[in-house]
Every structure is written in C-alpha cells, then in structure tokens.
C-alpha cells in the first residue's frame, strides 16, 4: 500500500512538474504543483444509488485541490471491518447506526469531537434527536446521513369502502380499521390485508417509540417489558388472532417488496408502515398513478389513553465514520464536512436532510410525498436506542422473543419478560 502510494506520488509530482513547466512558459507566474492525497471511501450503496454516490464523490474532487476521494462499493460490511482489522481498510466508510458502539469499543473508529470543536461546527439546526444516533458514551464517533423513519401509509379507497374518512390516530383505531377493511376468501385465505403486516417485519420498536415507550432505561438496562412494548405486540397479536397466523404469514409470500406484485401496490393491502422512499417507488419506478392507487400518509399511531404530546418516532440513519487506523483522516473529515454535514449527500440521494432548514429545500420538491415526511420531521422528536456494544446480540434475541409472541407461542408478557432477563444478562446488568 505504501509502495503504491509513493509510486503514485512520484508520478504525480513528475507530471505536475512537467505540466507546470509548460504552463509556466506561457504565463508570468509559475504555478506550484499541488499533490492531491487519496482518501479511500468504501460505501454500502450499489446499483443506481451507487452511481449517485460516485457523482457526489466526483463533484467533491472537482471542488477542491487537496484531496482525491476514491470510492469503492463493498456489498458486505463484514469485509470492511476485517480489512480495517488487518490494516488494509479504508479511511472513511459507512454503516448503520446500531453498530457504532461495538466499533468504538473495538477501537476502530476515530472520535470526532475534536474535529468538530476545531472547525467550529454546530448542530443546533439538526432534527431533534438525530445526532444521538452517532454518539456513544457521550462521544461523537460518526456523522449521520440519510435519516429514515417510518410513517403509516393507507389506501384511501379501501378505507372509504369500509366507511372510514380519516386515518387512525391510536392503536385501537388502527386495529379496528384493519379488521373492518380486511377481505377474506372462501377458504379463509386473505385477499386484502388490513394490517401493515407486510413486509414481514414487526415494526415493534417503531411502535414502541410512537407509543412513547423506551427500550432502555436511563441507567442502561434493557426494558422490553414496558406497557408500550407489550401493547405494540398485542396490536399485532390481536389482528393475527382474528384472521389466523397461518393465513397472514401466507399472505406475506404473495408479492415481492417494492415490486409490481407488492400487495400495497396492487391494492391488496390497506395499511403499510414504510419509509420515505416508498412514494418514489410507487409513482416514479412502478409508474402507478393516483387513479390506480390513491394513498395518504400519517404518523404511526399513539397509544390509546395517552395525552397528546409532541410526536415521537424512531429514527435510524446511515453513519459515516473515519477509521482509527486510516491513513488520511483529515481528508476523510474534509469530505464529511463538504459532502455529508453540508447536506449535499442527502440532497443527491434524496434522503431526509439532518438540518431542519434544509427540509424545505427545492431539491426535494420533485420527490413524491416528501413533504409529508418533512413536515413530520420538523416537529417530531426522534429517538433511537442508546448505542451499546451488545446491540447485535440483543436485537437477535429480542427479535426471536417477539416472534414467539406474534406467532402465539407465548403471550406478549411472557416473551418480553424473558427478553428483559436475557438482555440484561447479555449486558451484564
């Protein structure tokens, strides 16, 4: 690596000196050749999105003379980590926010507070709660990009068919509407799914957040057995009990997520919990018109009986971190400043900007239904589970217990009590 680097340096020096000579001949002042240092950036985006990343990179490279960012698409995060461990990793890379704690513990991320302080960057304008996704033990280890959170999509026509004019606000209303709008075939199989049970994920933690619950206590204990969590599970359970777990699960195999056979797209799903990319896929990629599918977006339901508070949602983000043993940390930081913190990244990728002031950016005007998400983001508080090094293990165990609850093998209370015990054992609390 080092050998290659110096070879390139020599080449560049020679090339620039030679060209400098020619330029110098024609002008009064001889130019001083500047050598760009490389910054290796490995990213997780492929396909069409990968191309946008490359254009962000090339724009940045053209905009300044100090650094040359070289992007590499790596499909698998594990490879990046191993390369870092072996000393042949990138300077900058991205991941999902859940992993930041273990990375910090392993010592593979560069703490960023000193850079932030030195360059006097403030995050006052950022969406409430979003910067927390990058903190661990009160230190900042990464910069967020592409915040995502979920909202509730609903098929207006199917709702109206059952006599509902407005979307649900609470969990009881959602369950009621879901049950009333479900259509079942003669053989009990489901034709129209009322509940947002497709795609096959639980949205458990998202519902806990919108119900105002927390998965971790202030002293770091794992608390999956709060009333909010149990209510969220029971919401799923109650719907499934009514129509049969087997039938609901079979329905899940009836189409492919975000393809033309996706049940929400075909009008076979009434409610859907999803992110801000969905309208774009519906209107732009799949070219489904308003006549074919008229949908609305509203916040996830709150818990019945709660007093109205500021809306809460669980947010997750991609995080960009500088590797602790990277060779060009300054270059990586500069790219972060120019491309990510500035909001350029979110602009180009069409994701939610971190800064509130950028929410009304004209760039987003073309994205279908972006405004629904932006408006919500302006007034909401975002929460995310506080980073801890055992998160991956805990999430797997948590998912396993939740699965038992929603397939009726255990009650919600039993499953969550079990999860609490196991989780705290893993955490050592």
């Amino acid at each position: 690596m080092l050998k290659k680097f110096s070879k390139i340096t020599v080449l560049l020096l020679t090339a620039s000196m030679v060209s400098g000579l020619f330029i110098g001949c024609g002008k009064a002042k001889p130019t001083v050749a500047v050598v760009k240092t490389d910054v290796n950036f490995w990213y997780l985006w492929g396909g069409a999105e990968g191309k946008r990343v490359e254009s962000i990179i090339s724009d940045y490279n053209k905009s300044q003379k100090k650094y040359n960012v070289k992007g590499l698409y790596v499909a698998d995060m594990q490879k990046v980590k191993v390369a870092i461990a072996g000393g042949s990793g990138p300077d900058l890379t991205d991941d999902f926010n859940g992993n930041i704690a273990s990375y910090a513990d392993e010592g593979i991320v560069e703490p960023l507070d000193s850079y932030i302080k030195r360059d006097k960057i403030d995050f006052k304008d950022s969406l409430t709660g979003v910067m927390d996704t990058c903190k661990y033990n009160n230190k900042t280890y990464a910069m967020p990009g592409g915040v995502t959170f979920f909202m509730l999509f609903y098929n207006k026509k199917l709702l109206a068919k059952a006599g509902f004019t407005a979307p649900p606000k609470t969990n009881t209303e959602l369950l009621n509407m879901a049950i009333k709008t479900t259509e079942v075939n003669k053989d009990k199989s489901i034709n129209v799914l009322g509940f947002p049970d497709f795609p096959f994920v639980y949205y458990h933690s998202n519902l806990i957040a919108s119900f105002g619950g927390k998965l971790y206590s202030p002293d770091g204990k794992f608390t999956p057995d709060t009333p909010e969590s149990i209510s969220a599970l029971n919401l799923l359970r109650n719907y499934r009990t009514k129509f049969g777990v087997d039938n609901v699960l079979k329905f899940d195999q009836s189409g492919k997520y975000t393809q033309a056979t996706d049940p929400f797209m075909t009008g076979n799903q009434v409610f859907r919990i999803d992110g801000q990319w969905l309208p774009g896929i519906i209107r732009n990629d799949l070219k489904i018109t308003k006549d074919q599918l008229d949908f609305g977006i509203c916040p996830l339901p709150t818990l019945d009986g709660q007093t109205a508070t500021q809306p809460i949602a669980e947010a997750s983000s991609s995080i960009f971190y500088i590797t602790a043993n990277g060779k060009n940390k300054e270059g990586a930081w500069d790219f972060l400043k120019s491309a990510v913190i500035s909001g350029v990244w979110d602009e180009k990728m069409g994701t939610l900007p971190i800064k509130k002031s950028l929410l009304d950016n004209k760039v987003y005007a073309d994205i279908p239904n972006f405004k629904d998400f932006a408006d919500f983001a302006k007034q909401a508080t975002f929460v995310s589970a506080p980073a801890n090094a055992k998160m991956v293990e805990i999430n797997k165990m948590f998912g396993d217990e939740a699965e038992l609850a929603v397939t009726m093998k255990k009650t919600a209370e039993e499953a969550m009590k079990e999860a609490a015990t196991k989780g705290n054992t893993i955490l050592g609390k």
Partner: protein
Amino acid sequence: MKKKHKDTIAGLLFASPWIIGFLIFTLYPIIISLYYGFTDFSIFKPPIFVGLDNYKALFKDELFIKSLNNTLYMTAFATPINLLFGLGTAMLLNMKIKGMSFYRTIFYIPSIVPQVAATILWVWILNARYGLLNNILKIFGIYQPNWFQDPNYTKPALIIMGMWATGTIMIIFLAALQDIPRSFYESADIDGANNWNKFIKITLPTLSPVILYQLIVSIIFNFQIFTQAWVIGEAGGGGNAGLFGGPENSILFYATYIFYNAFSYFKMGKASAMAWILFIITAFITWLVFKTSNKWVTYGGE
C-alpha cells in the same frame, strides 16, 4: 542405496504440493484453532486466553444448542432418506429397459446444479402462495404448509430439496449394483428365492461396503450444511423479520452459526471452539459407524 536416496527425494518433490499445503493450511490451522478456542479473540485485538470460558458459555448459549439440534435432526433424517431414495432409484435404473441412459441423465443432473441456484429454485417451488408444490397439494385437497415460515416445515423443506439432489448417491449405487455378478442371482433363482430374499441375502450384503462409504460421507456432508440455509435466509419468504436462522431459528445450522460468530460477530474464539466440537463429534460418529460396521458389512463376495 543410491536409488533409494534418489527415490526419497523424488517422492518428496512430487508430493511437495500436498505436503506444503498440509503443513500450512491444514496442520497449522488445526493446532492454532484449538488454541483460539481457548481465547477471547475479536480480530481487532490480539487473542486473550480465557481457558474453558468459551466452551462453558456455549453450553449455555441457546442458539448453539439450537444449531446443534437442527444439525443432528437433518443428519438423522436426511441421511437415511437420501440413502434409501438413492438406492431405490438406482435399483429402478438397473432394470433392463430402453432409454435407461436418458433416465439416468434426468435423475443425475439435478445433483450438479449449483447449490445457490438449486436453493433459489426450491424456495420458489415451495412458496406458500404461488409455489408449484402447494398448488398441486391444493388440487388434491392436502394441507399446504407454509414451508419457509412455519418452523415445523422448514427442515422438511430442506429434506425435500436434498432428495432432489441425490443423483451422485444414485450413480454410485448403480455402478455398484452393476458390479454384482449375475451368477449370484442365478444361483438364488435356482434355489427358488423370491425378489425380497434376493435383495436381503444378496444385494444388500454385497453393497454393504458401498453403503458404509455413502453413510459416512452423507453424515459428514449433512453435518456441514451451509449454503442452502444461508441462501434461504435471504431469499426465503421472510421469517423472523429478516434475522438469521429462519422462523424460530429452525434452520440455524451448526455451520451457519459458526460462520455468523466468526464473520458477523467477530467472535473468533467462540467460533473456533464450535469448530473443534464439530470435529470431535464428527470423528466420534465416524468411529462409531466404523466400529458397528463389523456387524453388518461384508467385504468381497460371500
């Protein structure tokens, strides 16, 4: 004397590719992985000796126990099923019928289909809603299981997939069957033996060495099942919100769990301990099969 000397050098030279490979990539790793099993080793830091902690922790690890159970289940069921099916189809193919080579080809080809593609094909065939199999079952009014989302049916699904690919086993049995001298059967015919007797008294005993070989190879193969389970985790119709292991971890197998521990969780120590346990179990079962084989295997003729 000189010739012997020359021969030894020649022998070493010719065998050197294997010897080098063995020393660097087999012997050394075996020894060092034994060591890793006693350490806490995430590759970001050097290994820390922790004695038997990994092993103790494993036996308390629910997922470890699950992966072991799943693997034992597959081995215990898939092995005899595949052997019986392979033997059965081989005997069918052994008949003197026209177009035998055509049938042989058809029966064999599925086993050479790349595992990833075969797995994906079967995930599609076993799709609970649109899959070929469930639609056929529907016509006959039989219950259509939710193959990849019902924890009771995920392993049976894998067993069905495995049966489709028993071509190799079948070919070996077929060749062995064709090796049995006709005279054996002729003399049995003279004695008035019926088909069943012929099978039990002649076919099986003569085939027994090959059965032994297949048994051991199958057991070892089933213990290491990886690709199918891995691919299903991604392509299968969901199951446990996209976390690995399938619904209720019903297809979390030993090899996939080792892989996750090594390359997702970076718990190299734990993964190495698991690998050694596998080694010991495999060696033990192989020894056991060999030991009991004296009772039922007959070598060379009568």
